[in-house]
């Protein structure tokens, strides 16, 4: 953000970075090899809805687009739409666990639809869920504004497995752009799609 924008108090909404999301499928292979976590096949996009009909039209168009090949081979389940208690909307896309490419394509379709309609700044994060054989839960969270990932490993209640998160961070350091500022690793308790 420029000095002038700050001085004049006209900070602009930040446009999302989309490209780094595509590093996910290859990172998932590394993750499986190094720590035994496999994708569950579900992932979600979280964005802040804008009031008014224009945005809700865009929202329902995206849903229709993703549902078009639901049920077909590789098409996954119909998307699930949830509104969380903070007012954010989560679009959950569910595929088979070996269809991470298709999942990422779905997530990207949501991103591009919002960006194309001028609502790119509303994108908050995207989340892809993993499990290991001990049924431990893990999500890789992609921060749109930073173009970075961080691991989120919720335990029961509102606790995080920080040791596991650090371990995952180190395992993926070469494959993904990991968020280095730990204060930005905010918890997404009860995120749909985990």
């Amino acid at each position: 953000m420029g000095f002038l924008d700050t001085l004049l108090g006209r900070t602009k909404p930040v446009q999302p970075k989309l490209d780094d999301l595509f590093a996910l499928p290859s990172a998932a292979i590394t993750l499986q090899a190094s720590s035994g976590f496999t994708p569950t096949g579900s992932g979600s996009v979280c964005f802040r809805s804008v009031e008014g009909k224009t945005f809700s039209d865009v929202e329902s168009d995206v849903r229709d687009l993703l549902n078009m090949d639901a049920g077909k081979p590789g098409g996954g389940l119909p998307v699930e739409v949830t509104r969380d208690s903070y007012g954010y909307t989560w679009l959950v896309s569910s595929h088979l666990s070996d269809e991470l490419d298709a999942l990422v394509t779905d997530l990207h379709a949501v991103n591009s639809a919002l960006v194309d309609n001028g609502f790119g700044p509303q994108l908050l994060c995207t989340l892809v869920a993993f499990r290991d054989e001990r049924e431990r839960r893990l999500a890789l969270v992609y921060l749109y504004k930073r173009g970075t990932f961080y691991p989120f490993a919720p335990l029961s209640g509102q606790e995080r497995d920080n040791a596991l998160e650090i371990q995952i961070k180190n395992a993926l350091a070469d494959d993904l752009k990991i968020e280095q500022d730990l204060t930005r690793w905010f918890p997404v308790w009860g995120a749909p799609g985990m």
Partner: protein
Amino acid sequence: MARTRYAPDRGLTVRMTVTMFLLGLVFVAFVAAIIGILTAVHASGAAIVLVALIFGGGSAIASLFYSDKIALSAAGARVVTPQEAPELHAVVDRLCALADMDKPRVAIAPTRMPNAFATGRNSKNSVLCVTEGLMYHSNLTPEEKEGVLAHELSHVAHKDVQVMTVASLLAIVAGLLVRFAFYSELFGGGRRSSNNNQGGIPVVLIIMAVSVVVYAVSFLLIRVLSRYRELAADRSGALLTGQPSALASALTKVSQGMSRIPNEDLRAAEPLNAFYFAPAMKLTRGGGGGGGGKSLSQLFSTHPSLEKRLEQLAKIQRELGQPTAGGLSAGPGD
């Protein structure tokens, strides 16, 4: 290409630039006048000017440096951890991620009045403080609370504490000069000035007169600037959440709540007024029905009138709701 529906408000930018330019102009004129006075007669007043500059500059730097601590202790607020206030932290986390900014510390003040403020000298040291009244005792919905927080985060992003400190430096120095000149005249300044006076007017008196004028003008300009900064924070906050009408209804509710608050609270809150979400001291009368005449109290107010703020938010709402084909907004009407 990504289109944007977030067109900057050119009118507001221009008005703010003009205000800052005028403040700078007053500053330059002030310095020139002081130097002029001091060179025209012997530098007898130099000591006073120097002392005022050092004191004024020092106090401005100190207040900037300790702004977070001063404001927190004035409000009796306490910084809370994510464990203590998980909901509040979660909202701030999300807004900061949306805005791509460093997360400020979060504090809660034990005040019944629903309000919030943000302060701190830089993004690493800023604090976002909400009152218990806003968090637990108000009838604000979660979305309206989020709007208030987004407004405060915009103040942080716009570095309003720094901007307003620099802007008020001039008024502080001018105000100190008036006082110093007055005292030096009172306590034995008469001897010195009688040596240097030209046409019977002592130097100190001239400095005092210039300072009074500068103080008055810069005071008004600072208030104008403060009102524009509030509008800018409203605007950025509404764009951040995408919910201008939630912010508008929060404003309405908080302003209404203000009138029901006992006086003790208001007096305690007054020094922080400039950084609050809504003015804790009611200087504006709110009436007038949008008619032309600006009242005097409006001129001195740190915050724009509720009508003005709601009007701007309604405009943002229209801009956000424009159909995609329309693309960019047609620009501000005025």
